[in-house]
């Protein structure tokens, strides 16, 4: 029998971490929580690798002219940054770590529907990552993470290894998504109706649908690119009648929905954190759920807004512009609901709450700058300039990465049974905010001034803003390093044991031990309400 009391001896009980020892037990586990941790360690490594690539790029760009590398080398570094951050880090991202850890706990299940398939997903992810590393070792790719044809067909770099890696990684993504969908459908505990699911679970559901439906498209597209390079097959190469714009269509058909794979789970995380630290229900639960599903659906019909100046027809350009405006609305609805959650709450400012509130600010910038890009007349100017670079860093870093860091801090006591150093976590948060905004706000201005992206060198009038951006990048890097090291240090050495439910949160995951036992629950729980029933019931409900 596990102890139910919230005393400090919690962490010393048998749990999923100490129940079996030895590296082999980890490498062959089918426990979703252990799999989540192994993803976490790998992802952290790649986050730092991608971050180093970012610093290399920003250091070169600190001043006009060649600083520390040639143009060719620079092109390989920015490609490496994009490929590592996107395919090896943020696409697996929150679903692989937090989704794997929390999903069964949140729905009251012992594990996911296919635990062995889950382990296979991890192995496939490792295989794909290895292939990417081989590519970076042999002859680093210099095409940008988008691998546009015909340059990607002609260049001598190890494109086949890298696109092959992306293909393999896509499989991992598909299998995880498939697993989650079946889990959510089939393994909800008694009383857990669809409308009692935590919004994080809904977010995972919408994300998984995208993973399953969109990933095969880019997989096949990259396979065709590989055939084109290896066998001279003619699909995208104009010298034999192929169409480079067709590549762009196929590529973005996945790569637009992929940004929702990155950010929807982060939206879910914010929806979990805000109610807890406001002691109020999530405002407009149904609207938040509908908007998650809506974003996933509409996200499939806007892909060519990445191609408005690629030579597509004027009709298409106008269609995709209007469709893109539509996808903004559900996101706006979410933000309104989040802030309303805080109304008349009892707000406390834990580190996860700081990150969640910052998320709202950062995502307002991200979303509104997206409007510029949706408006086709204005996108003509901004496309492929630094404005776009700043926009997508606000959405991906300010959105998805901040969501992941917030989640790691929030669920840390549950995952590891200890607390991290609070003061250090706050200092790190501040540095991340300062550094991130200093890096990317100047880039909006650079874009307005017409500075194109993927430029090794630039005209002198852009110098000051680039220098500011580089300084910001170093502060940003330092902040993240501090935050992550603080967490890892606490994992290994913190003596502050965490109680079962340090925040007095509702939600099934908080009913378990901290850290949970291997099977999560002694017996499958039963629920009779949703996870946001904070506060005193009001007389009337709308």
């Amino acid at each position: 029998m596990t102890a139910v009391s919230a005393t400090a001896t919690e962490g010393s009980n048998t749990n999923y971490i100490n129940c079996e020892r030895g590296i082999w037990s980890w490498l062959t586990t089918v426990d979703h929580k252990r799999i989540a941790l192994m993803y976490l360690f790998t992802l952290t490594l790649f986050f730092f690798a991608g971050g180093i690539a970012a610093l290399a790029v920003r250091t070169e760009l600190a001043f006009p002219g060649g600083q520390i590398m040639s143009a060719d080398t620079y092109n390989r570094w920015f490609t490496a940054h994009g490929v590592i951050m996107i395919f090896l880090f943020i696409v697996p991202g929150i679903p692989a770590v937090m989704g794997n850890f929390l999903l069964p706990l949140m729905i009251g299940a012992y594990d996911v529907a296919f635990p062995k398939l889950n382990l296979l997903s991890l192995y496939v992810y490792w295989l794909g990552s290895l292939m990417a590393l081989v590519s970076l070792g042999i002859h680093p790719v210099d095409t940008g993470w988008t691998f546009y044809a015909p340059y990607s067909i002609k260049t001598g770099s190890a494109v086949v290894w890298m696109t092959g890696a992306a293909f393999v990684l896509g499989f991992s993504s598909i299998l995880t998504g498939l697993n989650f969908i079946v889990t959510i459908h089939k393994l909800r505990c008694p009383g857990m109706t669809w409308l009692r699911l935590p919004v994080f679970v809904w977010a995972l559901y919408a994300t998984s649908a995208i993973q399953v439906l969109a990933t095969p498209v880019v997989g096949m597209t990259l396979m065709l690119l590989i055939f084109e390079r290896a066998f001279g097959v003619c699909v995208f190469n104009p010298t034999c009648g192929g169409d480079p714009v067709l590549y762009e269509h196929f590529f973005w058909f996945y790569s637009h929905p992929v940004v929702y794979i990155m950010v929807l789970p982060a939206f879910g995380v914010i929806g979990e954190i805000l109610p807890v630290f406001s002691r109020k229900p999530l405002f407009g639960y149904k609207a938040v759920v509908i908007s998650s599903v809506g974003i996933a659906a509409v996200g499939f019909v806007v892909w060519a807004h990445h191609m408005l100046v690629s030579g597509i027809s004027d009709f298409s350009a106008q269609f995709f512009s209007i469709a893109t405006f539509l996808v903004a609305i559900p996101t706006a609805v979410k933000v309104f609901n989040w802030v309303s959650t805080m109304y008349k709450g009892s707000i406390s400012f834990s580190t996860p709450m700081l990150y969640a509130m910052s998320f709202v600010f950062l995502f307002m910038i991200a979303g509104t700058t997206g409007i510029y890009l949706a408006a086709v007349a204005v996108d003509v100017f901004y496309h492929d300039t630094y404005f776009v670079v700043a926009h997508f860093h606000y959405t991906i870093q300010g959105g998805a990465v901040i969501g992941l860091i917030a989640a790691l801090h929030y669920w840390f006591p549950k995952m590891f049974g200890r607390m991290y150093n609070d003061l250090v976590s706050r200092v790190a948060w501040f540095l991340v905010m300062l550094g991130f905004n200093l890096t990317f706000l100047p880039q909006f201005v650079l874009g307005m001034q017409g500075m194109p992206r993927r430029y090794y060198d630039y005209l002198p009038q852009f110098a000051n803003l680039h220098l500011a951006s580089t300084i910001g990048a170093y502060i940003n890097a330092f902040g993240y390093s501090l935050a992550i090291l603080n967490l890892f240090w606490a994992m290994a050495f913190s003596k502050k044991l965490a109680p079962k439910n340090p925040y007095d949160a509702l939600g099934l995951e908080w009913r378990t031990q901290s850290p949970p036992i291997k099977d999560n629950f002694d017996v499958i729980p039963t629920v009779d309400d949703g996870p946001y029933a904070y506060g005193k019931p009001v007389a009337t409900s709308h």
Partner: protein
Amino acid sequence: MSHGEHASVLDDPQGPPHVHHMDPPTAYHAAKFGMWLFLATELLLFGVMFAAFAIFRWKYFEEFHKASKHLNWKLGAANTAVLLTSSYFAAMAVDHAQHGRNKKVLSSLLITIGCAVGFLVIKTIEYSEKYHHGYFPGGENFHEYKTFLPLYFCMTGIHALHVIIGMVLLGWVASLAAKNRFSERYYTPVEVGALYWHLVDLIWIYLFPLLYLVG
């Protein structure tokens, strides 16, 4: 506390394996649902090539029309018949499994796999015809149909790869039938395997007219 993870084959050697976190009906429905989702991904995978084919056929109609005439529609039709037959026997295997007739499951699946081998043999004949006329990638006449042929080989090649995957999958299921594994209480692998096989067949049903007939 653990919930007993080993398959309790001793209690009921023809019953569902003990999966500690799902009861048998849930496990069965979960497996089927999972396979349907996987089939959806396969459709999208092939969808890319179908879309590329459609676009290039519209763009290079002459070339596609002429090229399609070079394809041996008789062999293609034979392959269609072969695959339909294989699907029939796969469906029969499911029915037999649901009634516990393991020997008949084994024979039906062996016929299915046999048909698949026949498919691959016919495909090899077709490919070698192409090779001898120089229509293979790198062949001397390849450039004559330089947009049609790459797509043709990609689509039929990747389909053939899926035929092989299906054969391996069904072979594994057949080996279970040989050990008398199935009964009316448990036949999930047969059903799920057959589902996959039907998709492989379905893709060919679209490929054949598109490549060989409509051209």
